[in-house]
């Protein structure tokens, strides 16, 4: 190794010791060099798309209200035309499980594409790196600037960068809170300097987290904080797509003139220019093999392809490949691991879709009067008293029709002229039932209340209850 990079050169010791050393060493700042190429364009596309979705979504309107509003103060989640209630917690939990399984599936198939292109940590770090490059210049200039002692010029540049980072973070924090409390009103309160104490707290908290994670911590979040980075190798097998240096082709590495014939010099295709190391956002040398720090961002592929092209060599000295291919064996896309992940994933998605599509946005609770079991009326009928709680979880108000079944000739009396429940409201409805004693066959008879919306027969629910009598 003629020009070994001091940051990545690891001096001896077992693999465990090397890992321990890298984990516990004080982190040095990494200056990833800007990279151009196919995968860099893909990542920029991903970053712009995801940031766009994040910053625009809370401003979208649907049916006169915020389209996506996880309204914590009102305990209602509005997701376009769907309104979810705390009772629907299971759906959110299932969605999280589906997301987790999808991540497993994608990891087994394509490796850490999540890390390289879609993880918020990567996305915001890319945005912060972009700002840093615009203010401080490229990698060389940044290193030179950081090596200087503090002076007016350096202070000005650094202050500008942090101001821009801070503004971007504050906007990010504001947007975050806008997912949980109506964003337009939030914006109005912000302009009037009239934010609530907890809103202020969360804007600052989230903004600060963004600033710290994307501005300062960067790859250290992936290395020290990310649980996925630690266990993703469990989903890997020899058919998983990985970013890899083709050692057989590249070694022995060494610098040479462009005109030189590597074979005559006894060299492989790697010219040891360390471009792959310079562009790496986590500061590793991909030529040392697959490492847990690698987030599969493929910056090194772009950088190396560029060099190979300039040298007139074939591209792909570093490329997406699988362990099997490198060992000269065929790669299987369909394999037991993939099939198992897919079956579980599709199964849960189907279950979720079925249960969600048959979800009824109507709740009915029947509570018997606890003070007396039953009462005999003047006409000699047996009377039971109930309180019905009607919860309308639909997005619109409805008038409901209540029916009772289970005992022939049962008569129902309500104090209210109609059962009208607004969207998201609970109505307490006292109901008295009277039956002829002759119709009762035992002390306790099962009955059922059926509630149906007058304008929507599908919005209907049935709840069982007991009718008590003397027999």
């Amino acid at each position: 190794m003629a020009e070994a990079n001091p940051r990545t050169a690891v001096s001896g010791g077992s693999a465990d010791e090397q890992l321990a050393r890298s984990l516990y060493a004080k982190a040095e700042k990494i200056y990833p060099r800007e990279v151009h190429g196919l995968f860099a364009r893909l990542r920029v596309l991903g970053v712009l798309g995801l940031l766009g979705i994040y910053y625009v979504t809370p401003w979208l309107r649907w049916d006169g209200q915020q389209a996506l509003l996880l309204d914590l103060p009102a305990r209602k989640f509005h997701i376009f035309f769907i309104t979810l209630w705390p009772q629907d917690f299971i759906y959110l939990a299932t969605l999280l499980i589906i997301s987790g399984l999808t991540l497993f599936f994608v990891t087994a198939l394509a490796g850490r594409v999540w890390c390289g292109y879609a993880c918020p940590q990567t996305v915001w770090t890319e945005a912060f790196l972009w700002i840093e490059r615009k203010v401080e210049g490229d990698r060389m200039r940044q290193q030179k600037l950081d090596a200087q002692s503090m002076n007016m010029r350096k202070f000005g540049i650094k202050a500008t960068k942090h101001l821009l980072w801070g503004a971007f973070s504050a906007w990010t924090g504001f947007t975050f809170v806008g997912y949980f409390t109506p964003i337009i009103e939030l914006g109005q309160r912000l302009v009037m300097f009239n934010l609530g104490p907890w809103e202020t707290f969360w804007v600052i908290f989230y903004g600060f987290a963004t600033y710290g994670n994307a501005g300062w911590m960067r790859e250290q979040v992936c290395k020290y904080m990310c649980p996925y980075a630690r266990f993703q190798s469990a989903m890997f097998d020899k058919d998983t797509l990985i970013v890899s240096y083709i050692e057989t082709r590249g070694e022995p590495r060494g610098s040479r003139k462009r005109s030189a014939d590597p074979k005559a010099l006894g060299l492989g295709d790697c010219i040891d220019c360390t471009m792959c190391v310079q562009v790496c956002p986590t500061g590793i040398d991909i030529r040392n093999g697959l490492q847990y720090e690698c987030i599969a961002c493929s910056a090194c592929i772009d950088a190396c392809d560029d060099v190979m092209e300039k040298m007139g060599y074939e591209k792909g000295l570093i490329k997406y490949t699988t362990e099997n291919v490198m060992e000269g064996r065929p790669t299987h896309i369909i394999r037991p691991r993939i099939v198992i992940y897919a079956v579980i994933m599709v199964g849960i998605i189907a279950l979720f879709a079925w249960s969600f599509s048959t979800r009824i946005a109507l709740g009915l609770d029947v509570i018997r009067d606890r003070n007396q079991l039953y009462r005999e009326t003047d006409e000699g009928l047996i009377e039971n008293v109930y309180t019905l709680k009607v919860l309308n979880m639909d997005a619109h108000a409805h008038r409901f029709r209540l029916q009772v079944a289970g005992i022939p000739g049962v008569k129902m009396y309500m104090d209210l002229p109609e059962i009208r429940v607004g969207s998201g409201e609970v109505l307490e409805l006292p109901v008295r039932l009277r039956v002829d004693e002759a119709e009762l066959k035992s002390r306790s008879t099962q009955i059922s209340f059926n509630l149906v919306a007058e304008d929507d027969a599908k919005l209907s629910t049935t709840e069982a209850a007991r009718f008590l009598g003397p027999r």
Partner: protein
Amino acid sequence: MANKQIPKSQKCIAVLWPSFLVAIISTGLFFSAFDPQDLYPFGRETGVSRLGIYSIGFLCFWLVSTISGIGTLYFAITNCMARDRANPGN
């Protein structure tokens, strides 16, 4: 790995970060089941908005899980140190 070899910042992360995640999960579960307005801590009304109760709840969960994390870290480190003392060669 004994105590001094782990930088303080990493110890902080090792405690604060997992407990932060646990606090998010706990807050979500707890407040899905209980509406802050139905809660009367120590028999009193809080007079704090729902957002405030969620936030205080979250911070309390974070505090509690942080204390647990400090305990775990303390025992892990002191166990390692005891082992290092017992086998100074390793």
